């Protein structure tokens, strides 16, 4: 079993980038100047991850306003709609509003992944929203048939993965809706089918794709998402007792398992040794080829300075695990 560490998705925007967003919207800087600040910030965040010991890095999704925004802005047929609470977080996304036929017009996030590639020494992970969560959290004002909508959405997301695969070592497909407690069993099963259909169309090996679920894991939901034909990221901190039970009841023997063991919504201090001790209790139940230590979900829910501390803790977890697991 190989060990890795990497954040689940986003990293909070550094202060200078926050200011740059405001400056851009107020017309105080040009698009070009903003682009330079964004690229610098991405490189800085990549270096921050690597210095902390991450072997898998992301762009921090620094330009993303939410999980969907780059896609709602750059796919044909979509607009950014009203603000909606993102699950139970005090964080809001603009509802992707489908107003026309969905079409991929060209690479959406490739530029930022190339920026990461240029700055990173380790593995590069690209992130896209998954088709099921996209469907559940968007508003359809165009398609008469949901199947037709899904066909187009899946094709658009597939095309994006196609553009990313030469620059990214791993593709993470974010699907928090798969473990949404509000869903019934049949809808969740349908979600798994939709994601599997999407995965089957990707020209990427199964051990290079991770489906990320976060918030609300429990044994029943976990058993269902084990049918996904890809690696898996699970959040062990949102519902810790239920998630613990899930892993111990159902195990894991797929290619990649990413464990969200650093709570990305809390700033409560972490003892890396305790974390490693806890993960060790899973080793009788799980046997992935690659085990990734990760944050439970995106890090946008905490301030930048606290995210830096959490990143450091995650690095120390990997270092400790490399000693204790081997």
């Amino acid at each position, binding site marked *: 079993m190989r060990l890795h560490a990497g954040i689940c998705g986003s990293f909070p925007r550094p202060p200078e980038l926050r200011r740059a967003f405001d400056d851009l919207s107020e017309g105080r800087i040009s698009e070009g100047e903003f682009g330079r600040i964004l690229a610098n910030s991405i490189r800085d965040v990549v270096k921050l991850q690597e210095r902390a010991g991450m072997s898998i890095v992301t762009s921090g999704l620094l330009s993303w306003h939410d999980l969907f925004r780059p896609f709602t802005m750059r796919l044909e047929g979509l607009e950014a709609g009203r603000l909606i609470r993102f699950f139970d977080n005090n964080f809001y996304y*603009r509802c992707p509003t489908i107003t026309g036929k969905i079409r991929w017009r060209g690479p959406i996030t490739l530029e930022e992944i190339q920026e990461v590639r240029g700055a990173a020494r380790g593995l590069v992970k690209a992130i896209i929203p998954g088709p099921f969560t996209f469907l559940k959290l968007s508003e359809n004002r165009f398609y008469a048939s949901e199947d037709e909508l899904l066909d187009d959405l899946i094709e658009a997301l597939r095309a994006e993965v196609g553009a990313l695969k030469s620059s990214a070592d791993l593709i993470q497909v974010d699907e928090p809706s798969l473990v949404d407690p509000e869903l019934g069993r049949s809808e969740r099963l349908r979600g798994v089918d939709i994601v599997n259909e999407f995965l089957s169309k990707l020209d990427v090996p199964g051990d290079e794709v991770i489906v990320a679920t976060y918030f609300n894991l429990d044994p029943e939901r976990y058993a269902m998402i084990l049918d996904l034909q890809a690696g898996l990221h699970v959040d062990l901190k949102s519902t810790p007792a239920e998630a613990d039970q899930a892993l111990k009841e159902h195990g894991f023997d797929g290619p990649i398992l990413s464990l969200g063991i650093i709570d990305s919504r809390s700033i409560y201090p972490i003892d890396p040794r305790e974390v490693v001790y806890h993960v060790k209790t899973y080793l009788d139940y799980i046997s992935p080829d690659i085990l990734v230590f990760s944050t439970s979900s995106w890090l946008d829910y*905490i301030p930048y300075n*606290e995210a830096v501390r959490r990143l450091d803790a995650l690095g120390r977890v990997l270092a400790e695990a490399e000693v204790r697991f081997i």
Partner: protein
Amino acid sequence: MSYKLPDKLRTTVVGSYPYFPEALKAFQLRRRGDRGLEYESLVREATRKAIMDYLEAGIDILADGEQRREDMAVFFAEELEGFEISEPVRIFDNVYFRKPVIVGKITWRREILVDDWRYASSLTAGRPMKVTITGPYTMYSWSFDKFYGDMRRAILDMAEAFRREIEALVKAGATFIQIDEPALSTRAEKRDVLIAGEAFEIMLGGLSNVKRITHICYGRMERLFPEILDFPIDQYDFETKNRNYELLDVLKEYSFDKELALGVIDVHTSRIETVEEIMDGIAKGLELLPPEKLYVKPDCGLKRLKRETALAKLRNMVEAARRAREELA
């Protein structure tokens, strides 16, 4: 000066009112750590203007408009022992806010609201002045916890601290105490509702000659039942207009018979509800409760609206309550 409250369909507000320029200037001073005479004078002037608007609209039971509070959680966190304030956290797009951080045992260290309540009460022309407090469950939910690592312990300590404040307020003469718990309906897990219930017992249990109110809004409110009905609460203040009064069906299901402050104004739209539309809402409430137990008010605080809009909405609300009373007579 005394004011005779109507015995039916009393009108009230949830708490906040659009910020006056004086309040915005006061926030700037507060952020710089300046809470001197100018700051106090600005807050008082903003409060006076908010109360004058409430009076002009004809509200029966007032609040002070929360002109001192830039944020309903940060305000209390700055006053209680055990909190710091975080670096900015993103809430959407590139919009950030600061959150309280619990860094030590939460305790009460000084009176927080008593002076403001006394001042506000002096301006009401005899009408009751309600006190609004951000509840401990919401305070915890909207804070980071670096100290307890245990939601229940933190919430109960906060409840103890607020009990001290409430006792000080009651001693000063406050008779309407409202605990705002908007976060309670966000997750609405049973375990959380039970913890909130313990906190309410600590804060309000055994109080006499006080109207004990809780305001809850925007979320899965139906999941708070039936446990919430066991809280030591005399009046439940709910957001109902925004979701077309669907919550009333839930209340019927549980044979709700306490006082209900019914939200009849949507605070997230600038459209001014007509008097007739508001009367329709009141009529829906009257299908559940007698008019003596039904209070009429906006869904939530008004601070996100423009002042002119808020005032126009309140005027229509008061007029609708008046006409509804006439019809009942």
